[in-house]
């Protein structure tokens, strides 16, 4: 999870990823941030995030992103 936190903070330094629970649904991050995050996460964890995973539920919080990363890493 720490590694993920580092990736997220490097991409969007002004966002409080630990406490924010509506990153996409409350429009805290925009589409460009989302795509940049996807690219960085893919590189860092050596996974591919397919289009069907690009839904708000998977990117709304740090925990949701972590859950998706773990699922796709298997």
């Amino acid at each position, binding site marked *: 999870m720490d590694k993920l936190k580092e990736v997220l903070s490097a991409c969007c330094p002004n966002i409080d990823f630990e406490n924010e629970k509506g990153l996409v649904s409350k429009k805290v991050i925009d589409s460009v941030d989302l795509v940049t995050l996807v*690219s960085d996460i893919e590189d860092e964890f050596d996974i591919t995030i397919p289009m069907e995973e690009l*839904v708000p539920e998977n990117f709304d919080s740090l925990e949701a992103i972590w859950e998706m990363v773990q699922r796709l890493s298997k």
Partner: protein
Amino acid sequence: MGITSIGFILFIALAMILYYIVPGKMQYFILLGAGVVFYLTYGIKYVPFVLVNTVAVYAGARILGSRELKHRRPILVLVLLISLGMLAYTKYTNFILSALNSLMRSERFQMVELIMPLGVSFYTFMSIGYLLDVYWKKYEPERNFFKYATFVLYFPHIIQGPISRYNKLAPQLFERKTYDFQRMVSGGEQILWGFFLKLVIANRLDILVSNAFADYTSYAGVIWLVVLALYSVQIYADFMGCMEIARGVSLLFGIELEKNFDHPYFSKSIPEFWRRWHMTLGSWFKDYLFLPVSNSSFVKRTSKKLGKKYGPKARKNFISCFSVAVVWLATGLWHGAAWRFIAWGMYHGCLTIGSTLFEDKIKKLTKFLRIDTGTKSWELFQMMRTFLLCCLGRALFRAPSLREGLLIIKRLFMRPELWRLVDGSLFNMGLNRPNFALAMICILILWCVSMLQEKGSVRQMFNKQNLVFRFVVLYVAIFSVMIFGLYGPGYDASAFIYEQF
């Protein structure tokens, strides 16, 4: 069958009676039947296109939903080729041939006589959205062909949208509906408001706007400024009016269609304007074009290279600018096959990209100039600036050609002739003084209602008032639409309402 015609009202009444008397499980067949009849009233020649599209997408989605299928991409590409191919063939063939002729400076390619299927841009996008969702495994494909056809042919949205999503609309289409008087009243009020927007405002302004664009060299810059502002109101009232009628009619059947407008002229920036104008098209482009393009390997690879060389800001700027440019090119082409639409799309693309690239610099500049950006006056300035930028783009959108659109914009700046505003020129463009004044009063009503809607639902507020007040307002509204509405040639009332129409 136009949606503001008496025939349409009778058609709705008949469909509603049948809808509420048949058993719940059969209700969607009434919607399907009504959709087929409604579409057929525009001519049988359009039917093969919608039928092929519906069958191809239904079958494609069923195959894509199969768990045994190993190679899914070829199926997706094939169905996309069929669906988009029909759209491209009917809409863009002559544009491409004409462009090739211009490029080769010859008349080698003869123009083809083509049928433009009714609502093709809308049902194609709805179908592709469904197909891609199934391909991306967001939900299972529909097994029942008639249910899928009901979604595509649902008559309130097939002609002008909103561009509905299958997963949001389907549960409403297929659940049992019972008659609800309050819902009928709400639907009726929404339809009435739609008629007011379309018949009283849009059709009235259309006379002045059409006359201006038919003879664009005759008018001074300041007159063009007024015409473009009125055209911006006209296109809003026209499209919004149609949406209100469509959503109101849908509500009569207990089905809520998505909102397509959220008071776009109150936007403080161009990107915000596009989040509030034709919202279902914007969200369609975001989900099915912007995200796939910006998530493509080319964009990822290139943006990373740029990021390493010029920093993270450059990386994000590339993703944003490239994807926005693609989306705006597609948006321009979606609106029509002409250079002026492409130019209009690129104009808005440049404004959107510009507002992203210069966001920080503009913030610094306002800080440097000590502008208090928290005041109402600054918000008003931002709204007016956004509205004027939209008006400028409308010249390209509405002009007969790109060249004429550019000449109109040139006229705005090169020949302002401000005195024309008060010498009566405005009343010689098809709308006499009383009708011009009436148009202004109606625009004021629209503005007041929009302001109230920003604070909450006007219909809910209205429905809480006492019965006598509501009856009086509704009667006045109905008679206002009947008296002041412009119903076009062939309708008797128009002869005394508008002599020049």
